[in-house]
């Protein structure tokens, strides 16, 4: 497997975060500025250029016990500073299924 760090160049088009799935239970998490993981997007560290993105990703990949499969994902930041996912996939990862579940535990 090629590590995401070996990608030739990390290009980002706008504000981005690093997201992954928490190792022990698999839930969606975001890398925070405090070098940890949070399930809450509002706590995610925001990167704005490729050097920052590369650094945040490197640090995330190094924390292999905490979360798996980290990658850079686009976000949108509203006028009020609120962070929103930048595409449908990330929207679904944050808010869950777009359909009802057959049964809730």
């Amino acid at each position, binding site marked *: *497997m090629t590590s995401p760090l070996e990608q030739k160049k990390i290009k980002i088009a706008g504000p981005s975060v690093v997201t992954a*799935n928490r*190792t*022990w*239970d*698999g*839930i*969606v998490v975001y890398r925070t500025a405090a070098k940890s993981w949070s399930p809450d997007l509002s706590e995610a560290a925001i990167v704005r250029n490729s050097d920052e993105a590369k650094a945040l990703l490197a640090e995330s990949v190094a924390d*292999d*016990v905490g979360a*798996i*499969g980290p990658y850079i994902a686009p976000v949108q930041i509203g006028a009020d500073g609120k962070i929103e996912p930048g*595409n*449908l*996939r990330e929207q*679904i*990862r944050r808010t*869950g*299924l*777009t*359909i009802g*579940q*057959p*049964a*809730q*535990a």
Partner: protein
Amino acid sequence: MYAYDEIDRTLVNERVSEFRDQVKRRLSGELTEDEFKILRLQNGVYLQLHAYMFRVAIPYGTLASNQLRALAHVARKYDRGYGHFTTRQNIQFNWIKLAELPDALADLAEVGIHAMQTSGNNMRNVTSDQWAGVAPGEIEDPRIWSELIRQHTTLHPEFSFLPRKFKIAITASDHDRAAIKIHDIGLRLIKNEKGETGFEVLVGGGLGRTPFIGKTIKHFVHGRDILSYIEAILRVYNQYGRRDNIYKARIKILVHELGIEKFSREVEDEWQYIRNSSLQIDDEVIEDIRSRFAYPAYEKLPHMPDELRQAAADPDFEAWRKNSVAPHKVQGYSIVTISLKPIGAPPGDATAEQMDALADLADRYSFGEIRVGHEQNLALPHVAKRDLPALWKALDKLGLATPNVNLITDIIACPGLDYCSLANARSIPIAQELTRRFANHELANLIGRLHINISGCINACGHHHVGHIGILGVEKNGEEVYQITIGGRADEGAALGNLIGPGVKFDEVADVIEDVVEAYLALRERPEELFIDTVKRLGVEPFKERVYATR
């Protein structure tokens, strides 16, 4: 039902403790994800968008009621109260925690269920006809041979690190319910002129990015030679298969590139070396496996019991019976298909309550046996006809008596972008909307047999290429767009569908499908001409005109 022996039980239990240790080492950081990934994949554990996903094998689609209860228990205790039946006789749990997986596996091992060979580049769960052993006119029970192959290939080192995953399906009936032509190897049980049992062998079928219908590589391989013949195919594949390029690694690409003649010559050469080896199967081995498939003690029952005659007056019962009940090889019995496609719900999902209740109904009405088919429905294989009305009432209470088997709302769909990390677009909401559009049973019945298949990306887990109507989700400039094909089929006449035109947006898909169906109703020669036959007769053009004239 098949009774596992001591060897199987030991194997399954050892596997659980091995995996428990691997998970422990992963959680402590002793194993990195790179090291662990191949280990988890060998135990059916994927990573999805929201969580880990756990895929459990249901070999040749046969389940005992206590096994179905164990699946319900796993859904309830370790997941969110439901499971998803797939097109390859597996069940998937979508919300399982890695830390709890060893416990879930241990609970399943108690009833002989495991997740071996449900993922990774090995020989996958060997699938078969969900009506195996009960369908009238079948050559013999194909599960005997599925089990033989399962035993031979499970954890076989030569088949554990193949260039890519490898899937085998077996049928023994004229009508192919196992979709053998879209498998890496498809086996059709037949008899030769001498009355000996053997197989027509097909190779190189598959869907995904580069779809192919399987080709016949040999018209008759004697039953006793089937393991050596399969092994010969796998050796040629192991030798030449493209390990350097994941998109070219499946055997279908090799067969296509070499051509079936050259490929079959290679296999033939290899086969001559190993044909008369220990791979030749003794009759006793087959008899031993055969004896482990217990068949119920059927009663002598009338063809048309009073209960059935009386119930026939109820149009709701009749609507269900016509689509869900099929003839059984034993007089007085039926095979009952249970639709997991209620109107407005995700195809193939069943709740823990439904699984438990169904296990009870199987005990009461089907000698404790349940089957899983590739259409993402379940079946009760041995229901006495006199019990059909009572069974129907009980199923109806559970939401399991939707009378839509083989109709337009009996949709096959993959999890798509709601769950799957590889997806480009959503599948399930498309399926849900379509079932609402065609919810009216009179209308669905008027349309007749019509299979819609939906995949959320080119991997084709929803078999869209072989749907009578196929819907493939792609992404274009950040938006979900759907390509629609018609004319595909997955049965003995397997064919790939043809595109009707440019892709359409999420909100338009159901309208377009309605147009296609309206065009069919207007174009068919007579009510008995099925959608697929009208498409065959007229081609794509008239449908295309109808759909795109106003768009």
